[in-house]
């Protein structure tokens, strides 16, 4: 192969790489860390369940999630029935919705994804867990009149979903800065926000409420997670003892081999 061909390929590759990096930067900001201690806070999980059922479970389904599984986060069937059942009257049902996918496509440009395992699917190597993503995503909506819904998002640029929790958070605008990146002018997010219109919650309360919601979605992604870890401890303890026994058994036999 001709040398200049190789050089040409190399330069083209480098340009692609740079373009890729810029594109990746445009794919959303670095994620905030979800406060994982919420996962062991039942009140937080229950609060998250309430927010989920009231605000998410109209357009989004969680079709693999049964209502009565919420017993695992300390809710009785009676409590579930009286407070959280809007789409069915049986606690053994899964969280389905009645929105027609065809209409959904017309309204939002796409069918809102099922949220049963959304927290597991959104993790990314090097960026963070799915909960980190959701925690960032639900807190970085901003007004953008160029979008059909009037909303845009820093973690999910050009998102199809409008800001459902806007009454709580109010309207905010991220502060961008003109910077030169790779020789091109670019609007770079500074990490700061300006309040356009205050919401009904102050930012700390809003973050907490969102953290509760994300905790619920994280729990819903794998309801068995907590008992999985608990069983795992016992399994490992058993195996540790078993290994000691196996060690001595092995030694007892092998001492005869000269």
């Amino acid at each position, binding site marked *: 192969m001709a040398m200049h061909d190789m050089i040409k390929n190399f330069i083209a590759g480098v340009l692609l790489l740079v373009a890729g990096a810029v594109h990746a930067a445009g794919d959303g900001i670095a994620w905030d860390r979800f406060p994982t201690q919420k996962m062991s806070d039942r009140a937080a999980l229950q609060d998250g369940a309430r927010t989920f059922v009231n605000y998410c479970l109209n357009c989004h389904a969680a*079709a693999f999630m049964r209502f009565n599984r919420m017993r695992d986060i300390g809710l009785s069937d009676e409590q579930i029935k009286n407070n959280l059942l809007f789409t069915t009257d049986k606690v053994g049902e899964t969280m389905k919705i009645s929105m027609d996918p065809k209409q959904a496509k017309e309204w939002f440009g796409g069918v809102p994804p099922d949220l049963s395992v959304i927290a597991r699917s959104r993790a990314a190597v090097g960026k963070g867990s799915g909960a980190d993503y959701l925690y960032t995503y639900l807190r970085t909506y901003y007004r953008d009149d160029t979008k059909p819904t009037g909303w845009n998002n820093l973690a999910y640029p050009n998102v199809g979903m409008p800001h459902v929790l806007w009454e709580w958070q109010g309207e905010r605008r991220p502060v961008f800065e003109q910077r030169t990146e790779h020789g091109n002018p670019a609007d770079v997010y500074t990490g700061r926000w300006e309040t356009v219109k205050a919401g009904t919650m102050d930012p700390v309360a809003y973050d907490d409420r969102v953290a509760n919601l994300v905790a619920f979605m994280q729990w819903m992604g794998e309801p068995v997670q907590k008992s999985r870890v608990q069983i795992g401890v016992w399994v490992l303890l058993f195996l540790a003892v078993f290994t000691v026994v196996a060690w001595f058994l092995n030694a007892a036999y092998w001492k005869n081999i000269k």
Partner: protein
Amino acid sequence: MAEFKELPAGSPVTAQVTNWFENRFPTAFAEYKKHLSEYYAPKNFNFWYFFGSLALLVLVIQIVTGIFLVMHYKPDAALAFASVEYIMRDVPGGWLIRYMHSTGASAFFIVVYLHMFRGLIYGSYRKPRELVWIFGVAIFLCLMAEAFMGYLLPWGQMSYWGAQVIINLFAAIPFVGGDLALLIRGDYVVGDATLNRFFALHVIAVPLVLIGLVVAHLLALHDVGSNNPDGVEIKAKKDASGKPLDGIPFHPYYTVHDILGVSVFLIIFSAIVFFAPEMGGYFLEFNNFIPADPLKTPAHIAPVWYFTPYYSLLRATTSVLMPFLWVGLVLIGLSLVRPSRLPAMVKTTYWGLMALLFFLFGVPAIVLGWMGIDPGMKVLAGFDAKFWGVVMMGAGVLILFFLPWLDHSPVKSIRYRPSWHKYVYGGFVVTFLVLGWLGVESVSPAKTLLAQIGTIYYFGFFLLMPWWSRLGEFKPVPERVVFQPH
């Protein structure tokens, strides 16, 4: 056929029961002796000898958990994803079975790669164990097919698009590729038909072949006897009763030994199953928690980690690499065939074929390249661009079959080879790991270059083995195995 034995009256009940069975099913007793209690294995097995029995354990784990998964799984494009979540949530213990199966898939490859590495460094593929090795490579091929088809079944985005990409590779085969891909898919895109046939192959066809090959692997091994870290044939020195002096009965010595290995393995296995079943997105890919969507191609499609070294070989094969490969192939052919003892006719045919190939593909590529015209892979190959990449990926696996005849070293074990051979093997391990890492990354020019260097090392290691494996100062091989009592 054993004679019908009568025990004297008043014998213990256990002896009588055993005798009753032995008279009616002597084969079971004879085989037990042949393969366990009177199979003499070298007494100097080390750490590396755990992985054969562990591979068998993982096979059993996969079969048993697989049976339970099939009880609840639905091989239907509309239901598959939901049925997996149903197993994870509503089937009692379903999550455990599923995580054991998904972790087992990766564990299988880890254990098998280590098992193969053992064979590589101690020369376990050398005469008279060539068939043991060949059955083993066939098992590895089966395992790849099994894993690939199993990965489609959860019907997530990675399942779907991974299968789409890999099946399309078959389409690159000249003349028959398109029809072959169609035959594999059963449709023009991956769909319900693909899922159904992959399910059938994954749960019935391939496991049957796999078990058959494992049996052949073990029977052939027990016929020729196990190799050991010293590469000494223990059958060469026997005592008066005909037992190898350095051999010990597999049962109980290696059964208790393997129980220890199994318990340590299970600690690691359970730690993953219970505390990190996704293994950071490498055992269960995050994208696979999104149901398959034929209309949405993920930005980054990578095979599961155990395929990535071979996937790297494919991606490294660009038009830049091809002339190097042609020249390399000619040089290797020159160094191998010229001094060999093959009949003159075979040599002439070989050179004729090489010259023909070189003029058809190599010369136009180099000439056009120097003229500044990008010949692309089409001119170079005469076939579809992906073709040579697919050839390289396939060759990467198939070359293992020829290992017994590539190694010309006078000794089997790495212990008695020239010290610098260890660096050659070390380089191979590093290459394999780097290729694996590159296979999960998205491409960049620097990474492609690294993969190309790795590809050249990978094939150079094997193809030049007849040359380098003879070089250097070999150490004297002892007559008996080296063993320190515990």
